[in-house]
Each structure stands twice: as C-alpha cells, then as structure tokens.
C-alpha cells in the first residue's frame, strides 16, 4: 500500500540499491518527463528524445548527491534536471557552431550552480512537490490494479449525482475495515456487504467498479488535493 515514509528518507535509504533506485526512477518517470517537457516546451517521448535520457540521468545524479540540507528532494531533482538540460542544450548549440570553445567542455557548470543557488528558489514549490509525490504514488498504486488514468478519464462519471454516489460507496468501504481488507485481498467490490448497508443497485456498483476503486485508493493514499473525504461538499 501507500508509503508513509518521506520521499527524502526513501532516497537516502535506497540510493545504494540499484534495483530500488530503478523502481523509484520508473515511478517518477512522468515527473521527469514533465519537467523536461516544460524546459523543452514540447512533447518528449521516452526512447525517442535525448532530453529524456539527460533527464533520467540527472534524476539519478540528484538521488546520489541529495542531502537533506538541500531541502525537498523533488525541488532539488527538478533543479538538477533543469541544469543538466541547459548544459545539454548548450553542448548541442556548440556542436552546431563547431568546437571553437573546447576549453569549456571539461568544466562542470552544474555542480557549482547547485551549491550557489539559494535554497529559497525551490522552496516555493513545496506544496506542488507534495502533490507530485502523491500523484506518482497514486499512479503506481493504480497501475498495480491495472487501472490507467486514461481509462479513468474515459469512465469517470459526468453526472455529479452518480459521481457522488460512487464516492459515497468508496467512503463506506474505507470506513469499514473488513470491506477494505476484502477489496484489497480479492480486488473485487464487497457487493454483498455493500448491499447490506447501502441501497445501491448491484449492476450500478459493477458498472462503477473502476471508479469506486480509484476513489478508495485516493482516500487510502490520502490525496490531499482531492476533496473526497467529506460528504461531497454538499
């Protein structure tokens, strides 16, 4: 289930274990892509665009050189990715012009910059970073259930009343730990138990299965952004 350990502790703990480093990197691949895409100003694809290879190695580099004094890990990683991309673009443009500035090739502008940049610059995004970690964990958790965000965007109920009904079902499941346990174990909705405490048609529950599970996972994972824990804001 969802990790209660902070990302910072996780990074420090696992950075010498190659397998777990690989897992963390793959979990944060969408984040790395979105940072690189924002820097590039265009869509980038893994395995196609070099910027993403640069981004991945920058993320790994950030994991290796991270220190709690540097603030939140994601802000630090974002900074390293951006610096490495600037470096990459500079090298690309040098290649284009010919190697007349070869003396500068060997120095490492990034490490120097990381130290000199004020921590204030990336503390601003603390709230965003918290959200990103939650989103990445949520995505990973959904993937374990074979649910994609694409799928959720397709099946997410458009009608507010129906959405509210499904969220109510999810709330009931989370509230009753025996139902939550059964769901986690069998990956099936506890239809019988739900029928006893709620008056929702079985067919309706079956139709909304994926959305209900997504809402349960959002509640269990404590997605701070989403306002689903309370009774629908009514």
């Amino acid at each position: 289930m969802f990790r209660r350990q902070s990302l910072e502790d996780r990074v420090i703990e696992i950075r010498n274990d190659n397998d777990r480093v690989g897992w963390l990197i793959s979990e944060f691949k969408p984040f790395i892509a979105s940072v690189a895409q924002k820097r590039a100003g265009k869509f980038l694809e893994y395995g196609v665009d070099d910027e993403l290879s640069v981004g991945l190695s920058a993320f790994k580099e950030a994991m290796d050189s991270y220190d709690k004094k540097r603030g939140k890990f994601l802000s630090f990683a974002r900074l390293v990715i951006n610096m490495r991309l600037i470096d990459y673009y500079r090298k690309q443009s040098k290649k284009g012009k010919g190697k007349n500035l070869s003396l500068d090739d060997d120095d490492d502008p990034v490490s120097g910059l990381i130290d000199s940049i004020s921590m204030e610059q990336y503390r601003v995004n603390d709230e965003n970073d918290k959200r990103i970690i939650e989103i990445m964990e949520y995505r990973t958790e959904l993937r374990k259930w074979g649910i994609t965000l694409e799928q959720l965007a397709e099946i997410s109920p458009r009608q507010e009343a129906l959405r509210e009904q499904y969220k109510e079902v999810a709330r009931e499941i989370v509230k009753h730990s025996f139902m939550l346990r059964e769901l986690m174990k069998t990956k099936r909705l506890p239809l019988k138990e739900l029928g006893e405490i709620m008056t929702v048609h079985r067919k309706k529950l079956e139709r909304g299965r994926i959305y209900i599970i997504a809402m349960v996972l959002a509640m269990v994972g404590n997605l701070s952004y989403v306002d689903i824990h309370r009774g629908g804001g009514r």
Partner: protein
Amino acid sequence: MKAVIMEMHKDYCIVMTKDGQFLKQNIPAGVFEIGDEIAVSKEYAYEPKTVKVGWLKNLSIAYMTMIIVAVLSIFGVWYFKQYLPLKNADLLTADTVEEAAPAAIEEEVGEGETREESAEESGLSMEADQGEAISFEKTYSLIEEPKVDGENINDVLSFSYEIIGGVNLQVEFRNISSALIFSGDIKLTTLFSDNSVSRTKIIPLENFEPVQVVKEPVFLKAGETSLKLEVNGNAY
C-alpha cells in the same frame, strides 16, 4: 473548477478535479508540469478527433483496397489474355522441339486431307475452266519464326506475317503475279503447342488482282504457338 495535472500527453493532459472527476484537457505537453494546478473549463475539454477520423479512415482504406483489388483483377484478366501467349510460348520453346515430330505427322495428315479437297476443287475448277488451281499449305512455328517475309505461293501470292507487340499477329497477302487474278479462300488456323486447333479464320479473296494487298490482324491467345496456312483457289 480547479484541477491538478496528473498526466501529460502529446496534445492533452489528464487532470483530476477537486471533487474527484478525471478529465482530459486540451493542453499540450511543454506548458505545465505534473502537479500544477489549473482551472478546468468546458472550452478546453479535449475532444478526441480520432474516433470520427479513425472510422472514416478505416472506411476509406477499405474502399481504396476494394478499388485496388478491382483494378488489379481487371488488369490481371487483360494481362493473362494479352500477354500470357508470349510468356507461355517462351516457356514452351523447349517442348516445341520435342513436339516437332508429332507436328510433322499432323501436317502430313492435314496435307492428305487438303489434297483430297484440292483434288475435288481442281475437279470443279476443271469443270468451270477457270485457269490454274492453287493449293498451298504450311505450318509456321510462331516461336521459331516470329516474322516471315514474302513466302511465295505458286508465283501468284506472297504471304508475310509479323508478330507485333507479342500478341498481335499481322498477316499480309500480296498478289505478286504480273497478270493473274486470284480467287479463293485463305484459311488461317492457330494451333496450340500440342497441335490441337485453337481457332480458324477464313479470308475470302475474290478477284484478287496483281499488286493488290490484303492485311489481316490476328490476336494471339494464351498457348497458341503455331499458325497453319491453307490456300485454295484459282489463278487466271
């Protein structure tokens, strides 16, 4: 309503609204990062164009395939009708050498028949007293002799043929005599490689005068490898 960006795609992103709705928004990659908060609006709702276009595309692909198949089959039929004779002929050249012997037998048999016929005809002509009787017969292998120029028939007629474009057999008869007029029939028979008769064409020549020329086109069919010429008539 506010929403947070959950996933970026090439020309849209998936967001989650505060009330737990997942939506696609028409925001291309490279503008925001995952985790950024945006305001969602119906204006920016992502409309997948692919459904309609994909359907149309499939339909047009199906139509295109059907048209291509139709054109190819028409062309194929035409091709087999027109060009296969020569190809077959090329393939059969080796066989024709072996088959030359039975062909000769056939020729003899044919000759025998025509001799009888010509005898009858000459008998008739004797009765009618219409000058010199002409009877001629020869089989030409179209593969070995794609062109024959001026085959002399009793110093009265000259026969030539030429294969044009592989399928078109152009046959020509010319009266090469100085004063004789020819009247009679010319029978052209195309034969398959096993000497069986494919088609017969009769060209009647009435009062065919000196220097006069008759040209006839013959389209070759698949498998036709030789041409039998029979001339029966009178010159006076």
